[in-house]
């Protein structure tokens, strides 16, 4: 029907299957994020460490280039392509992801909450769970592109350019990078969504996201110092994550660097509790209608 015909005509065309609704939410969410120049700039910046790492891998596996770089003394730079190197790559990719999500996380959900769009959104055949899952999937997808995907490509590149069989002996690195990144980006996504769902102002939500990550870390450190213990690290998200990454990648590091040996199970439980708190906060906030108590 042409748009100039102004009489009401009920839509009678095809209706898409229910399973596509999640995709609609994800598609519009992702499009909204990509529409921002700041997102694009941050995204490119997040890829810089991966590009540098790729150059390093290339140089370390190319004798001619190393010779050119060696100068007069004849011995070129030497960096071992081992767990420690990939742990550094992981740090280089995962921490910028925190900056990226501090921008895109609140943006993704604040727009829906600013003008109370949830009643209209949820009056369509989608559930609250699907709504949150869709937003979560967008964030996980975005962060995957800057974390485990480039890291896996670097692993593949190293395997390809290595003169000796390398991949078979280091598969645990690939696995560790994938699982470690996934835990990190799911945690960040949940924290970001839950913070954004409670704070309508984006700038405040961004600040609060950083505070949620770093303030408990400071409190945990103070707790450790006062109580002469290491259990305060359980609320220290940066410390917890790096300890997990070290263990997952099986990095051979000095004992002091393994965060005083808190059990992996305890670390995982603490992360799980944080995720559960975020889900609880989302459950309380992502509703079509608020029920005023009292």
């Amino acid at each position, binding site marked *: *029907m042409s*748009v*100039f*015909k*102004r*009489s*009401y*005509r*009920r*839509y*009678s*065309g*095809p*209706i*898409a299957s*229910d399973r*596509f*609704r999640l995709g*609609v*939410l994800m598609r*519009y969410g992702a499009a*909204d994020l990509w529409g921002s120049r700041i997102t694009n700039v941050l995204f490119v910046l997040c890829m810089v460490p991966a590009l540098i790492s790729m150059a390093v891998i290339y140089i370390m596996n190319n004798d001619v280039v190393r010779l050119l770089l060696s100068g007069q003394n004849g011995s070129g730079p030497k960096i071992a392509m081992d767990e420690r190197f990939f742990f550094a790559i992981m740090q280089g990719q995962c921490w910028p992801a925190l900056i990226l999500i501090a921008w895109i996380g609140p943006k993704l959900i604040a*727009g*829906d909450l*600013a*003008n*109370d*769009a*949830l*009643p*209209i*959104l*949820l*009056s*369509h*055949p*989608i*559930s609250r769970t699907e709504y949150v899952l869709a937003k979560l999937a967008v964030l996980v997808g975005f962060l995957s592109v800057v974390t485990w995907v480039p890291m896996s490509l670097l692993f593949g590149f190293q395997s390809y350019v290595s003169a000796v069989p390398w991949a078979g002996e280091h598969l645990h690195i690939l696995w560790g990078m994938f699982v470690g990144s996934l835990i990190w980006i799911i945690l960040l996504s949940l924290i970001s969504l839950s913070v954004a769902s409670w704070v309508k102002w984006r700038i405040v939500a961004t600040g609060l996201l950083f505070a949620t990550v770093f303030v408990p870390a400071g409190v945990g450190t103070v707790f450790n110092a006062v109580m002469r213990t290491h259990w305060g690290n359980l609320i220290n998200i940066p410390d917890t994550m790096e300890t997990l990454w070290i263990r997952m990648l099986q990095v051979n590091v000095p004992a002091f660097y393994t965060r005083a040996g808190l059990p992996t199970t305890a670390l995982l439980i603490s992360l799980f509790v944080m995720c559960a708190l975020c889900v609880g906060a989302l459950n309380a906030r992502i*509703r*079509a*209608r608020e*029920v*005023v*108590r*009292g």
Partner: protein
Amino acid sequence: MAVIELSELEVRLANRLVLDGLSGKLAGKAIGLLGPNGSGKSTLINTLLGFHAPSRGTAHVFGLDVRAHSREIRAAIGYMPENDSFIGTMSGIHFVRYMAELAGVPASHALERAHEAMFYVGLGEVRYRKISTYSLGMKQLVKLAQAIVHGAKLLILDEPTNGLDPVARQRMIQLIREVRDAGDVNLLISSHLLRDVDETCDEVLILKKGHIAAICNLEEERRANRRFIELETVAAQEPFAVAIRQLGCECASFPGERWKLVMPETVEIRDLYAIAAQQGVQIRKMNYRRDSLEDIFLTAMDSKLGVARVGV
């Protein structure tokens, strides 16, 4: 089939009883939902949409239980909330298209439908502007556009004329009437303004303190009113009354040569004029009984709770 069927519906929110044992069938083409503040109108709408779960009893929309089939019900509903509810950073057309796709309109059709809906509600010229820049009236219209874009079987309009100036209100009422008269769509209109409901609805559900105060079929009420006539005459005597009774009318006389008649379906007004002319009676004044929605509403508000039907 009833559009909405309530069966002992009880809804508690934060341990407060908000809807208390509502029962009734609503089958009108356009159903008005009336009641003072806090009577439970919005809670009833939210329950029909599946936002609140009934604590007892149930409600059906097009025969579908709101508990078990809330997804199917929402697929058949277009909802226009009372308060601001939009994504301010989106353009009007983008927002309506988004809502169309969420309702199940394929992406290939959604844009065309969004354009249609925006032009239909009169926002064609501003469809590429961000919604946050719209006036209050435009925001109301864009909410209506997103409600009708996917071809809902039931439109739920919560205070559709809220905050509109008289011209915009008239435009909104006109749109609602057009949608109602277009055919296969039912409407549930919640409003504080009796005039809005009177102008658009053929059935009304009146709520009071979480109970049904009245369910009234306005169409039947209007038909009945048209048969009830009051006359003021000059020189009317007993033969005038006899002649009128012979037509089949019920007739009663009052001091001052005032008459009250109930006409059967077969009798027309011109028959009364014909008798008056034959008998030399002057009819100085003729009134239809006007039992307005306001009367119905006030009667329902004054009545004890539990009075179920008025004028049916």
